[in-house]
């Protein structure tokens, strides 16, 4: 498949952040017209490697060549000029500009008084038609769905005549069906002569879309192998370096017969609006003691509003939210006092006070109560340290000492600290919003096991997740959220990956029908 110079050649790339060796002497080639998958766990060094490729970071050692020419390190402009296009996991689009402006931004010389929008527009439409990437050039980017934003990102790279396209976890924000569509698009790129680096931590996708697979582990290139020689177990072993035991769901406690169980959480016909937008419409849901109910959905379909609602951060515009039969308002302290354990999606900014110590964060929800506050005002450091030491040990938070600032912990350790803070109080209701987002396989299994055992001990668990594997591993019942509407929570046996995917994209069908009609 390769001919002449490879599209990209990385030689001996190393990059260190403090004590962490993010990339350790990585040498790798990308052939012309090839799809190379970069596979690895979170934290394996994939993102660092492509950031070096694209000039966001300057490597401590090593060099990058594109089409035989050495790239100036640490200079994104040089990477762009050499034809490298990047689709970041977190989009780099201006929400307040329209699609055309987002594509044009930075491509026009500053001294030209007028931008040549008509020509640019027709070129953009031509590219879009050629690769089947439908977008409206005059739509405001902020109004687009996530899938559409991704198309704009890709078009942006194509418009700049990218010959090498790097996609960082492109399927993380897509429904299964949308991913399949993306893979078809990638194929058409290859036919048009582009070379592609596809970053993922999902084995299935990597096997179905790539020509070759490079596996990274702890900053080192573990193996490079042709896709037709690879299979899921081998890749998994290469990626994790050990086999991970998947926790198995213990049998849940049965409520005593005759005793009508009050749902731990009941959401009744709730509307949430933000300005003109309806974030949740007439959403109803109940979670009983001992069961795990999962909310599946593509990011941005109302999960945030639902999570805010059941964490006491937001009050509904209509309907009620009850915990054990008692209506609670939008005041987190009420929820804490009601014994609700809340694990927020944004663990760094919502979960912990980054500047406070690990010890303070370990008891943060109860800092004003004895034994942590004496007489309701004086901080008892000894009591806090004692409680924190136990949580850190029980929940395996890796830190130097509990007086350390929490901002110094890794994401996985912050999550364990949060889990410890919540679960050590034995809450009767647990809200887990994307609890394993961005964590490595070991931490994921560990967190799953903790949630399962909490449910087995009678806690009600509401799990909000975008990872279907996680949902199928944990849930008793699954509800789907799409465009602010919540389906009924049906037993897990009712669902398949396919039917769940369809439900998640429910209204995407209408869009497609509309675009087919034109």
């Amino acid at each position, binding site marked *: 498949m390769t001919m002449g110079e490879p599209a990209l050649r990385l030689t001996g790339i190393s990059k260190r952040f403090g004590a962490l060796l993010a990339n350790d002497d990585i040498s790798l080639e990308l052939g012309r017209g090839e799809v190379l998958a970069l596979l690895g766990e979170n934290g394996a060094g994939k993102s660092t490697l492509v950031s070096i490729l694209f000039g966001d970071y300057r490597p401590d050692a090593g060099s990058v060549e594109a089409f035989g020419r050495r790239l100036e390190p640490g200079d994104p402009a040089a990477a762009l000029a050499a034809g490298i296009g990047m689709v970041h996991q977190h989009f780099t689009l201006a929400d307040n500009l329209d699609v055309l402006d987002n594509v044009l931004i930075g491509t026009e010389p500053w001294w030209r008084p007028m931008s040549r929008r008509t020509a640019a527009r027709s070129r953009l439409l031509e590219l879009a038609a050629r690769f089947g990437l439908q977008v409206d050039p005059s739509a405001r980017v902020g109004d687009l769905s996530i899938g559409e934003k991704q198309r704009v990102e890709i078009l942006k790279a194509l418009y700049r005549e990218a010959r090498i396209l790097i996609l960082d976890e492109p399927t993380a924000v897509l429904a299964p069906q949308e991913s399949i569509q993306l893979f078809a698009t990638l194929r058409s790129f290859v036919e048009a002569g582009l070379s592609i680096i596809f970053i993922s931590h999902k084995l299935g996708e990597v096997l179905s879309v790539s020509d070759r697979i490079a596996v990274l582990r702890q900053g080192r290139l573990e193996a490079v192998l042709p896709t037709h020689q690879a299979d899921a177990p081998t890749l998994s072993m290469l990626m994790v370096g050990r086999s991970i035991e998947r926790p198995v769901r213990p049998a849940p406690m049965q409520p005593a017969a005759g005793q009508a169980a009050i749902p731990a959480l009941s959401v009744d016909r709730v509307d949430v609006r933000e300005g003109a937008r309806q974030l949740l419409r007439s959403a109803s849901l109940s979670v009983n003691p001992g069961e795990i109910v999962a909310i599946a959905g593509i990011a941005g379909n109302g999960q945030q509003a639902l999570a805010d609602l059941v*964490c006491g951060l937001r009050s509904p515009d209509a309907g009620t939210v009850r915990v054990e039969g008692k209506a609670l308002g939008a005041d*987190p*302290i009420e929820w*804490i006092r009601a014994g609700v354990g*809340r694990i927020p999606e944004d663990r760094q900014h919502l979960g912990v006070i*980054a500047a406070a110590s690990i010890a303070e964060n370990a008891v943060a929800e109860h800092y004003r109560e004895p034994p942590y506050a004496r007489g309701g005002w004086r*901080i008892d450091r000894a009591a806090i340290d004692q409680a924190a030491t136990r949580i850190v040990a029980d929940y395996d938070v890796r830190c130097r000492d509990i007086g350390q600032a929490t901002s110094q912990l890794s994401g996985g350790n912050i999550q364990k600290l949060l889990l410890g803070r919540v679960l050590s109080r034995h809450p009767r209701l647990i809200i887990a919003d994307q609890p394993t987002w961005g964590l490595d396989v070991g931490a994921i299994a560990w967190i799953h096991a903790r949630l399962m055992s909490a449910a087995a001990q009678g806690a009600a668990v509401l799990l909000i997740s975008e990872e279907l594997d996680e949902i199928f591993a944990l849930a008793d019942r699954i509800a789907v959220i799409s465009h602010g509407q919540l389906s009924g929570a049906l037993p897990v046996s009712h669902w398949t990956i396919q039917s769940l995917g369809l439900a998640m994209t429910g209204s995407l069908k209408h869009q497609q029908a509309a675009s087919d009609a034109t």
Partner: protein
Amino acid sequence: MRLERRDVVPREALVLAPLTAVAVTLAVCALLVAWAGAPVGRTYALLFEGAFGSRFALTETLTRATPLMFTGMATAVAFRARFFNIGAEGQLYLGALAAVAVGGLHDGSGFDLPVPLHFALMILAGMAAGGALVLGPALLKIRLGVDEVVTTLLLNFIVLLLVSLMLDGPMKDPGAMGWPQSVGLKPELEFTRLIDKSRVHSGLLVAIGLAALTWAVQRFTIWGFEWRSVGTSPSAARFIGIPVNSVVLRAALISGAFAGLAGVSEVAGRAGYLTLDMSPGYGYAGIVIAMLAALNPLGVVLASIFIAGMLVGADGMTREVPVPSYIADVIVAVALISMLVATMLTRYRIRRG
């Protein structure tokens, strides 16, 4: 070159940072002194002698430092809870005005109250006036999200006009030959002198005591934890059940009260009456002091003495060498910038590439 976060902030860096900042400041300002054609060594010697070199110099520096401690603390307390109160100057004047209103010799005699009660009322009136002035901006910020920097800053000018109105009207001293000056304070309400034949008054002790108290509250009570949490991560603070709005309101009111106290202390401790030029920008200098002190109340005490020393020292120096006393302002400004850079470098390191 780029900045990289340090995993651990070395302890010695915390001590080294301010010392380095001072050294850099003196080095930079030495260039200006040389440019002005004065001998650098002698100029600095005169500056420090004028600030700390004699009993008189030292007492003058401490007198000047007293209002700075109050306004510096006012700023530090508010900034810590991320309420950017830029209005200490106005709060100072309103506090001073309230002190005169309560304790002044109106119509030659003033209110007839037992001295301890009268004294307490005067202090409380000053603090309440300062706090009341911040109440509006604080509520506007909490309820409507109005930027408190703008509102507190603009109130400064309104207060100055109000003071001007009062000094030319109801509170005008009839014996001041037409100068806009308030009636004097009742003599028995004035602060006691701490040191003979100097202007150092007991306001200094109050300021230092309050700094120590504030430090202890921030360190040992749940208020401190709430302040810090709201100031560094407001959304996480809300999530763990801290009543963010009332913490901000509380910090704002305390801040205003401290600034009001600066005004009381100037009237009752130093001047004995109120004029429109009583504060040469103590409220604004408080911002610089709070930043120099990294918002630490005890640091505020030291930073106030340093800045007061530079201002007092420059007055003496300028009589001996051809350097304008404005050099003090330059030194203060450069010190602030150096300190901010030094503090940043304790948390980040510079890396090439």
